[in-house]
């Protein structure tokens, strides 16, 4: 048996992605360690890891952003590498550099590439220099508003250091421009510590298509096909699928080749995602490159049969990219639904509470990635994503049906979630016909509201409530035991 890729890896993250990484570490006989804030002490990630270390911070999120403390923990536990997951420190160039300086392996690209792609303005310039198409844009500076207006309306104001939709404002007419710039700058300052923004042409009915890439750090790179992530609310993804059902084979070839050429030009190492916006005519423009594993990586795993975390570990350990481009499979279709603690019937407001009951689906061709367990509190301290349900099929239609079935089996009680709404989305004719763009949810909001209960449904719900109130003794059990009463031998 060959030596493991690493003896021990520390995961600088929490929740479902920590659990996801532990699974691969275990498969390959690598020791797993996690850091945790005390709010997460009873979480599945801490229970599943071989070892865990408590970290502290002024806020719970602050603990997971404290790179120095996390590197100390890795050294104390003798972990040779750190996997940053997504979010938190995963795209922090200083952290990647500090990990390397401490003599540890950062499982991700080099600090320089993270810094390049993390500065959205520099990344766009780099992409343009290497022949990647960009939509017209204007950087901040003198007469910003006037120069931005020249792009034409609608346009979008974005944070240079941004991501996740924060510090982002669509401006439809000149009169809204100044106020939008002010709000975007203020939001960006508080979210990212930098108020630098830029303006970009807004494409109506755009689709969000992204390409999964892997680089070897020496100019070699391949893609693992694309994902369609056009179903978004507040610029944040809710449904992701692979492959994209809205592009032609020629468009697939072009967009994947463009992503690979950018990855090669950057001497990119490890996993990355090149995000594009695609116009109705099939033209596509570079949005940004995410220098980490994505939340939605499972759909790529399902259609390729590959373990992306395994690939990350192999490349970080100095192995070559495991497959040649021609050997990367693409079989069937996969769709991921993100289960959030939020109320779709009230503007997707985040919800908090205790998860009093949790039934996860055991449906056909369905995978569940979660970091939550029954009894756990859902607080405002962390991202409100509770689980990802990923369903596959030979065709997109089969995957939709499998996901709908899986969502019907998913029961989360005690905190409001979007599960029922996701089921309604799976049944929507326009979704089934793949009439997708990023305005889908706004356009079909009315169709996706919950229908009132039927009279029978109302009676079932009321009867269930009464049975619950009176406990097991509310109604006698049917069958022979029920008939003979409480007597047992």
């Amino acid at each position, binding site marked *: 048996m060959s030596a493991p890729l690493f003896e021990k890896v520390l995961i600088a993250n929490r929740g479902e992605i920590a659990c996801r990484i532990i699974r691969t570490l275990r498969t390959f006989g690598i020791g797993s360690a996690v850091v945790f804030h005390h709010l997460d002490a009873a979480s599945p990630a801490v229970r599943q890891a071989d070892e865990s270390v408590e970290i502290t911070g002024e806020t719970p999120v602050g603990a997971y952003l404290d790179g120095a403390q996390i590197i100390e923990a890795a050294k104390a536990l003798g972990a040779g590498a750190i996997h940053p997951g997504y979010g938190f420190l995963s795209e922090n160039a200083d952290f990647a550099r500090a990990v390397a300086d401490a003599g540890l392996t950062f499982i991700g690209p080099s600090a320089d590439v993270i810094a390049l792609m993390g500065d959205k303005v520099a990344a766009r310039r780099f992409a343009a220099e290497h022949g990647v198409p960009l939509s017209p844009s204007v950087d901040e500076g003198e007469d910003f508003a006037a120069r931005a207006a020249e792009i034409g309306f609608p346009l979008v104001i974005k944070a240079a250091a941004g991501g996740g939709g924060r510090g982002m404002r669509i401006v439809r007419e000149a009169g809204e421009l100044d106020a939008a710039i002010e709000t975007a700058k*203020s939001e960006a300052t508080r979210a990212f510590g930098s108020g630098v923004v830029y303006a970009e042409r807004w494409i109506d009915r755009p689709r969000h298509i992204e390409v999964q890439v892997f680089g070897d750090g020496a100019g070699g790179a391949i893609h693992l096909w694309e994902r369609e992530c056009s179903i978004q609310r507040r610029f944040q993804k809710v449904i992701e699928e692979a492959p994209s059902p809205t592009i032609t084979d020629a468009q697939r070839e072009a967009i994947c080749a463009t992503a690979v050429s950018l990855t090669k030009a950057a001497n990119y190492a490890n996993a990355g995602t090149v995000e594009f916006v695609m116009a109705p005519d099939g033209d596509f423009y570079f949005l940004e490159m995410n220098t980490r594993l994505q939340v939605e990586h499972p759909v790529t795993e399902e259609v390729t049969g590959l373990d992306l975390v395994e690939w990350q570990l192999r490349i970080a350990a100095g192995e070559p990219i495991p497959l040649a481009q021609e050997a990367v499979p693409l079989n069937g279709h996969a769709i991921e639904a993100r289960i959030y603690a939020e109320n779709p019937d009230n503007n997707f407001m985040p919800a908090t509470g205790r998860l*009093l009951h949790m039934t996860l689906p055991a449906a056909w061709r369905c995978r569940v990635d979660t970091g939550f367990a029954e009894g756990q509190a859902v607080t405002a301290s962390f991202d409100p994503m509770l689980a990802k349900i990923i369903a596959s099929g030979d065709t997109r239609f089969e995957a939709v049906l499998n996901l709908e079935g899986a969502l019907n089996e998913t029961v989360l009680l005690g905190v*409001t979630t979007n599960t029922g709404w996701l089921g309604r989305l799976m049944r929507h004719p326009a979704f089934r016909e793949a009439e997708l763009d990023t305005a889908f949810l706004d356009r079909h909001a009315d169709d996706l509201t919950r229908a009132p209960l039927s009279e029978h449904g109302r*009676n*079932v719900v009321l009867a269930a409530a009464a049975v619950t109130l009176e406990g097991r003794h509310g109604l006698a059990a049917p069958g022979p035991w029920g008939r003979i009463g409480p007597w047992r031998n």
Partner: protein
Amino acid sequence: MAWKLSLDGNIHELAFTKRTYPQEVMIDGRRMPVTSYMTTGHGFLADVDGQVGPGKAVRDGNRIHVHHAGEVWTVEIDDPLMSAARGTGGVSGDSMTAPMPGTMLSIKVSDGQSVREGDVLVVIESMKLETTVKAWRAGAVAEIHIAEGATFDRGDALVSLEPEAA
């Protein structure tokens, strides 16, 4: 015992009229056969009026969350005291209350200032999202209840306008 239960804003009366097999429940004066199979955990299977309705339910204080046909419905025990204490976000009377806990980012008006409907009063942040609170009607600002930088809870008053002249 009989229960007064609120579902989707309507009050229903429910009582078990027969607890032995075959069981019977009365909902809003109408008797119907019910079979309930309590399984492990929070499961139940209720045949109501001859139709099967499998699901799960859990009690959460005064409320019962019921999963039925892919959706969760919340039934509340109707108790006049509880209903009075129930505070939610939105405009109630002359005040705007917070729908979510959050932070007061900036105050755009001062006490006594006249505002038109739609004028920005304050900017708040809840769950990392910045929201402007606009005047829901014209009037004079009576009070800004939360200082800049201070945090508030769900249901706290944010801004009050002077009562409208009769």
